[in-house]
């Protein structure tokens, strides 16, 4: 009964905290903090990290492959053997390929599986012949990521977290790291503000836990952040506060930008966003004059106009020279521990794992040489596009660890669409809402039950190790994919017996991971910062000597105001937005199975400003119906000053997406998940 301390990476958010799983005979008994290594978390953990083995040991884990026997969505299944499951899947893939061609098949990878597993999902989808490939991260960073790529050539975090403590100004914009990344907030933001005297400003329609440290709090209506960003550009340019040398030497497109924003005064932005013009001016001047670490997240990202907002914010960072040096920070901040694992293995309908485009003939040829099979050259569908085409262009879907029946916008519509598929395979650790629509459900090993690689928000590539045996017949995702490939007759391309072998292939296929070898990562639990081109050669600060664009300059983008797709009107007079709890995560698949979290963050509620509450005769604790044009949900009201007038807000771990809107941005395919028109009504009990 010897106890073993197995080093693991936390399975939840993207801070990348490390600790030990204390394993006894293949079972996790507890966790222990790692105070020895120079890790990002310096031993610390948030409540999710501390409770992270509870869901692993849940009795509700999937233990055997399942075949649907009831109606789609009903949740009635019978247990089958792995052999039978593989046989059925392989037969159906063959049939569908023969009838409709491989372009009728879509794959969904995940920000919750390892780097190696994302790579294999990508390889298998291409081996089958389809480029319909995406992951739920489409609804996460896909405003900021394409925007920063357009301007800087790369979207990733510019600096390590340690630089945040050296910043003079912390801007937190549509982000609530005190709840979504508490260890990052405590170890880096608080140190900057409380210990090093940095100033902090917050842009958010809600008041949140971290906001008590802010000197200024701007409260825009949801989805109007773009107006504020444009006005800040206007202020910085018209008051000539921009970094002239930096603009001159390291950017292009300044004149076009200047022309584009010349009419967007703070007074104009005040009318749209409800934020006093004077506050917009103050923050713009602060950003222009102080070394700034700027954090944006879903409050900025999850809008149809999020791309434009992200462009404007990136322009602002560039012209104020807050990039390419120490003591600043900006970049994408994925929600999950492995968002980068999917993004950096090219999980997207138009990419190759090398990050190059599927339409790039040369890059395709190079990959075909490495992989030994033909790679399709057409651009596939994004996640919302796949859902829209279910039963039409898309006949079959293979989902690894994603819960789109709950996380995609307009849930009622998504669930109807799921029913239209000829064949659905879901590979997961629990019978999620989505799995209930599957024809075959495959039981996967959970995070601590396999070895693999994770990548944190600050670009740290770290290894996590197997600490427990999977329950019943569950298997790691990578092994399921390898065995299925064999059944499909693709075995020669999937000859892996251990995740190390997959990582070695990644080392040779994806240049930014060349130095992140299994051996290096085993010796260095704190990992390396990608691009890590040679073992030990991480890159801590990006863009010091040039951007990742063709000419090495930041390509400033002119941006125009764009209205959110749905705005409050007489019928639906309120803005509805949503947020997260520190002790819940995404759709709750894992947190609902963690008793210590579930009992502390048990249910949803709707935040409503006292003025609105009075208008609608609502008191705290009343049961109310929250309604949009897509549907309605019931929740208790919480009357509070911590949400601005005209806005209501709900946590997004329950049924929020019955209310959101599936309209997407034409380029980024981001949906409207954070700002829709709603009404509330008290329900008599």
């Amino acid at each position, binding site marked *: 009964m010897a106890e073993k301390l197995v080093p693991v990476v936390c399975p939840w958010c993207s801070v990348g905290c490390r600790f030990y799983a204390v394993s006894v005979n293949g079972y996790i008994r*507890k966790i222990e903090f790692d105070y020895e290594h120079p890790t990002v978390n310096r031993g610390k953990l948030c409540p999710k990290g*501390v409770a992270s083995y509870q869901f692993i040991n849940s009795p509700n884990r999937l233990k055997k492959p399942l075949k649907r026997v009831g109606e789609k969505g009903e949740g009635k299944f019978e247990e089958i053997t792995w052999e039978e499951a593989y046989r059925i899947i392989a037969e159906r893939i063959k049939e569908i390929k023969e009838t409709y061609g491989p372009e009728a098949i879509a794959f969904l990878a995940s920000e919750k599986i390892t780097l190696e597993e994302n790579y294999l999902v990508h390889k298998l989808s291409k081996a089958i012949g389809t480029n319909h490939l995406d992951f739920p991260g489409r609804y996460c960073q896909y405003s900021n990521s394409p925007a920063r790529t357009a301007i800087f050539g790369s979207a990733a975090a510019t600096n390590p977290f340690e630089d945040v403590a050296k910043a003079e100004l912390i801007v937190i914009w549509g982000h609530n790291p005190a709840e979504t990344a508490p260890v990052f*907030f405590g170890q880096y933001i608080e140190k900057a503000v409380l*210990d090093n005297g940095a100033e902090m400003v917050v842009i958010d329609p809600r008041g949140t*836990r*971290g906001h008590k*440290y802010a000197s200024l709090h701007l409260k825009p209506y949801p989805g109007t952040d773009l107006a504020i960003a444009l006005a800040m550009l206007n202020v910085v340019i018209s008051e000539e506060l921009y970094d002239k040398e930096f603009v001159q030497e390291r950017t292009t497109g300044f004149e076009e930008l200047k022309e584009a924003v010349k009419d967007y005064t703070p007074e104009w932005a005040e009318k749209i966003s409800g934020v006093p013009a004077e506050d917009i001016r103050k923050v713009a001047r602060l950003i222009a004059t102080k070394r700034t670490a700027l954090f944006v997240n879903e409050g900025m990202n999850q809008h149809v106009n999020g791309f434009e907002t992200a462009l404007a914010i990136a322009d602002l960072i560039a012209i104020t020279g807050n990039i390419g040096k120490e003591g600043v920070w900006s970049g994408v901040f994925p929600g999950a521990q492995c968002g980068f694992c999917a993004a950096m293995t090219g999980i997207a309908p138009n990419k190759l794992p090398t990050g190059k485009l599927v339409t790039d003939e040369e890059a395709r040829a190079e990959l075909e040489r490495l992989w030994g099979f033909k790679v399709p050259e057409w651009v596939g569908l994004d996640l919302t596009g796949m859902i829209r085409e279910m039963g039409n262009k898309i006949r079959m879907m293979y989902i690894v660890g994603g819960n789109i029946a709950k996380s995609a916008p307009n849930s009622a519509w998504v669930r109807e669409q799921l029913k239209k598929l000829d064949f659905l395979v879901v590979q997961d650790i629990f019978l999620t809402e989505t799995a209930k629509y599957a024809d075959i459900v495959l039981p996967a090993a959970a995070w601590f039950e396999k070895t693999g690689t994770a990548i944190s928000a600050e670009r740290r590539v770290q290894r996590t190790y197997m600490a427990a045996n999977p329950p019943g017949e569950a298997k790691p995702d990578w092994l399921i994919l390898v065995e299925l490939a064999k059944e499909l007759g693709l075995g020669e391309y999937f000859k892996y017996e251990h995740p190390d072998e997959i990582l070695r292939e990644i080392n040779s296929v994806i240049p930014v991971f060349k130095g992140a070898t299994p051996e290096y990562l085993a010796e260095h639990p704190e990992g390396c910062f990608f691009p890590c081109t040679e073992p030990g050669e991480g890159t801590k600060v990006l863009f010091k000597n040039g951007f990742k664009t063709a000419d090495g300059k930041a390509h400033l983008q002119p941006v125009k105001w764009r209205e959110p797709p749905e705005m409050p009107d007489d019928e639906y007079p309120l803005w509805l937005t949503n947020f997260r709890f*520190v002790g819940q995560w995404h759709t709750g698949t894992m947190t609902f199975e963690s008793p210590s979290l579930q009992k502390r963050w048990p249910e949803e509620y709707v935040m409503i400003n006292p003025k609105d509450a009075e208008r609608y005769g609502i008191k705290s604790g009343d049961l109310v119906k929250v309604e949009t044009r897509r549907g309605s949900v019931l929740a208790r009201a919480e009357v509070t000053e911590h949400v601005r007038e005209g806005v209501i807000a709900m946590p997004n771990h329950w049924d929020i997406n019955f209310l959101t809107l599936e309209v997407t941005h034409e380029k980024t395919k981001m949906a409207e998940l954070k700002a829709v028109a709603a009404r509330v009504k008290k329900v008599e009990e």
Partner: protein
Amino acid sequence: MSKKIFLDYKRCIGCKACEVACEMTHGEARIRVFEFPDLFTVPFNCRHCEKAPCLNVCPTGALFRDEDGAVAFDPLKCIGCLMCAVACPFGIPKLDEENKIMDKCDLCADRRAEGLLPACVSACPTEALKFGEINEVLWNREGKIVANLKSSAEKGEGEKAYIVL
């Protein structure tokens, strides 16, 4: 020599990692985080009082002071008479109904014996919970406040240093 957990509550963000860590270690959380409407949150656990009234009234000697100065607890001696709960000004000792004895924070005696920090302190992401020789913790705090006052006076920022208080 007296080791304590100092509650630097202005750093607290109410994440309840401390509660969960305690619960995972002892089955029941012996630390609680109180939330106030102005977004302030205050963690609170046994104060391990220097003149602990609970310890003085315990008829069986189940409560005792250990070598680190913690008001520790011997479950084998406890008879569940609730005298400690009556005497404690904060209502800290609770009845463990299953085992018919009291339950209270022992500053993680088992963890300290292994050279580890108390579970709640280990977890706390913001360092709102600080464990150590209490006067050392307090001298550090004083030193930091004075340094902050000095640096803001030099920068002409006056009152700002009080943010740490």
